[in-house]
């Protein structure tokens, strides 16, 4: 099965060279069709298709090992015994590895014109052409296994894709850095870099020729580094961490009363406990040694302990900045910054893959500095927020006090939330549409809610404004949106 289908595919893949030939005009979709014209005709004028790193299937297989073990769960282990369990795991993992080898063999990528083309699939062959004008963010991710083997995964975020488009797993670190530079250059529209195969190391970017770029400080002007102790303390100040002692006491009491200490029971309990603690632990692991840097008009974010990530977000792609003050952090005066980029669906529950961390934890001064960097001229501590009218308390007796909205020179700012206070900042140039919604109770009280929709995230909503003010706000937002877009 694999051989027969794969054979013609190989023919079109020329030598896996590191420096592709100059990219001429796009050769069209026939570049990957093993047609009767023969591979020689297409290979001559298209840049050669590049393979992923040969170690990738091994890593994929190892990754599937964990999935298999998790999927089989403890109860299977107790039912079939350890020997059979090991055999089962080995067989499944081996099968996954074989599949990974086959898929690696059939996967390739190359840049044609202003597109990145990714070819994949064995039976259902698929070629994805990713228009680089639409590139929102590039991420270099290095899971633990990839770090041990010196590999990296490249992820692209494109507008319109519900999920991360085209994860190229895995490339060598140098390849990944080079490809990222090249993609960003093409996306920014510098045509001279397209034709030269590999990007020449420019003085402003010393990272290209580095051997292990992600191990070092991110290039550019460093903005801020989060201290790891702060990160740990901040994650201890979460509801999960506070509830942990209660849970442990309950479990211990139960075991003491029942007197059964079987391995399965303990293991299951520990697994359940890990599930509860997963979020804070994950945050600690993900945001370990969080560093933020600015490189011309891009933001570089570097974080992670077991899995290091290096995200590059062009500043002009930032749709929303959200500032959060969790209840338990208030005694420390800490806040968290998040940014929204187009291309991530708002309903995505798995927030691991979203390049949304701008600051995992920090005080007001740091937050103000970073916000000023991302949205120049915006002072976090001096925003012109006005509360809704007094009668909004009939609708929200407690949280009406926390509400606020204001028109800054460049951004629309909205504050909400009684316990977990949130402040959303939407630049006028990023507004997609404005809505005014008025429910029946709001109509009684002559109130209305103004929504601002953005391409990523959930936008911002100014709740319960006075009706006349809401109309004025909507008109002003629309006008400012037009002005801001025209200015660009």
């Amino acid at each position, binding site marked *: 099965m694999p051989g027969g289908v794969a054979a013609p595919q190989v023919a079109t893949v020329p030598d896996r060279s590191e420096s592709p030939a100059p990219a001429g005009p796009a050769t069209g979709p026939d570049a990957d069709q093993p047609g009767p014209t023969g591979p020689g005709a297409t290979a001559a004028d298209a840049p050669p298709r590049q393979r992923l790193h040969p170690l990738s299937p091994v890593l994929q297989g190892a990754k599937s090992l964990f999935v298999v073990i998790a999927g089989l769960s403890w109860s299977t282990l107790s039912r079939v015994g350890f020997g059979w369990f090991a055999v089962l795991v080995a067989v499944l993992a081996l099968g996954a590895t074989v599949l990974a080898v086959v898929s690696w063999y059939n996967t390739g990528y190359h840049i044609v014109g202003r597109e990145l083309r990714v070819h994949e699939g064995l039976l259902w062959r698929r070629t994805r052409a990713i228009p680089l*004008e639409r590139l*929102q963010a590039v991420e270099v991710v290095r899971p633990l296994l990839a770090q041990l083997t010196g590999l990296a995964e490249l992820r692209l975020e494109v*507008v*319109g894709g519900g999920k991360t488009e085209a994860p190229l797993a895995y490339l060598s670190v140098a390849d990944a850095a080079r490809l990222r530079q090249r993609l960003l250059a093409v996306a920014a529209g510098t045509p001279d870099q397209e034709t030269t195969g590999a990007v020449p190391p420019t003085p402003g970017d010393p990272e290209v020729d580095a051997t292990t770029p992600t191990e070092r400080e991110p290039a550019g002007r460093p903005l801020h580094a989060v201290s790891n102790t702060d990160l740990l303390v901040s994650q201890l100040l979460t509801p999960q961490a506070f509830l942990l002692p209660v849970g442990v006491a309950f479990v211990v009491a139960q075991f003491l009363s029942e007197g059964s200490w079987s391995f399965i029971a303990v293991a299951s309990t520990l697994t359940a406990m890990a599930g509860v603690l997963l979020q804070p632990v994950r945050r600690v692991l993900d945001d370990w040694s969080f560093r933020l840097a600015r490189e011309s008009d891009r933001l570089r974010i570097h974080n992670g302990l077991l899995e290091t990530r290096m995200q590059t977000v062009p500043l002009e*792609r930032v*749709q929303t900045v959200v500032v959060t003050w969790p209840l338990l952090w208030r005694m420390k005066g800490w806040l968290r910054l998040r940014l929204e980029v*187009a291309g991530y*669906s*708002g309903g995505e529950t798995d927030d691991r893959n979203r390049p949304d961390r701008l600051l995992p934890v920090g005080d007001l001064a740091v937050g103000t500095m970073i916000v000023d960097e991302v949205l120049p001229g915006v002072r976090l501590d001096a925003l012109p927020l006005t509360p809704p009218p007094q009668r909004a308390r009939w609708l929200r007796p407690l949280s009406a006090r926390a509400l606020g909205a204001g028109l800054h020179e460049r951004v629309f700012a909205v504050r909400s939330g009684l316990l977990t206070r949130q402040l959303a900042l939407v630049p006028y140039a*990023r*507004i*997609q*549409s*404005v*809505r*005014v*919604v*008025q*429910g*029946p109770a709001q*109509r009684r009280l*002559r109130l*209305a809610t103004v*929504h601002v*929709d*953005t*391409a990523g995230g*959930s*936008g911002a909503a100014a709740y319960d404004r006075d*009706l*006349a003010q809401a*109309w*004025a706000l*909507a*008109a*002003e937002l*629309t*006008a400012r*949106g*037009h002005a801001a*877009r025209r200015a*660009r």
Partner: protein
Amino acid sequence: MNAAEPPQSPVSALEPWPDTVRWQPISTDLIWVELLRLALGLAVLLVGLAVGWALQGHWLFGAGCAVVLLGGGWRAVTIVRGVHAWGYAERDDDLLVRHGLLVRRLSIVPYSRMQFVDVSAGPLERAFDLATVQLHTAAAATDARVPGLRPAEASRLRDRLTALGEDRAEGL
């Protein structure tokens, strides 16, 4: 279309910026489409209940029929009023769509933010010679749907939106 500058003090709840915006109503034929749709739904429910009543003879089925009929009548009234409340307006730079009675919604969508325009017409709508135009932006929450347009008006609106969108198209 008339002036783009919004006035400083809008007054009425139903008519924001009454001087500058000329609201266009949608076709009242949409009432019939919606009523037919409602009638079909009600008929299915009623038949189910009637069969139950005939077989079981329990009085609850009769009560159910009455409730369904009452709800249907009330819904018919809201449909009539709701269609009259629906309106749209084309300004120089943006499209305004308002609808809803219980929850009133007004959407302001700049033409330059338009990603694509949908024109659709279901079988019932086609029977009454109507079509629906929907404007999509990059934001999923954008709610700019104009139902109950004559096909000529729908294609005019679509062409105008497309032309304006191309004129002023910007990235994200």
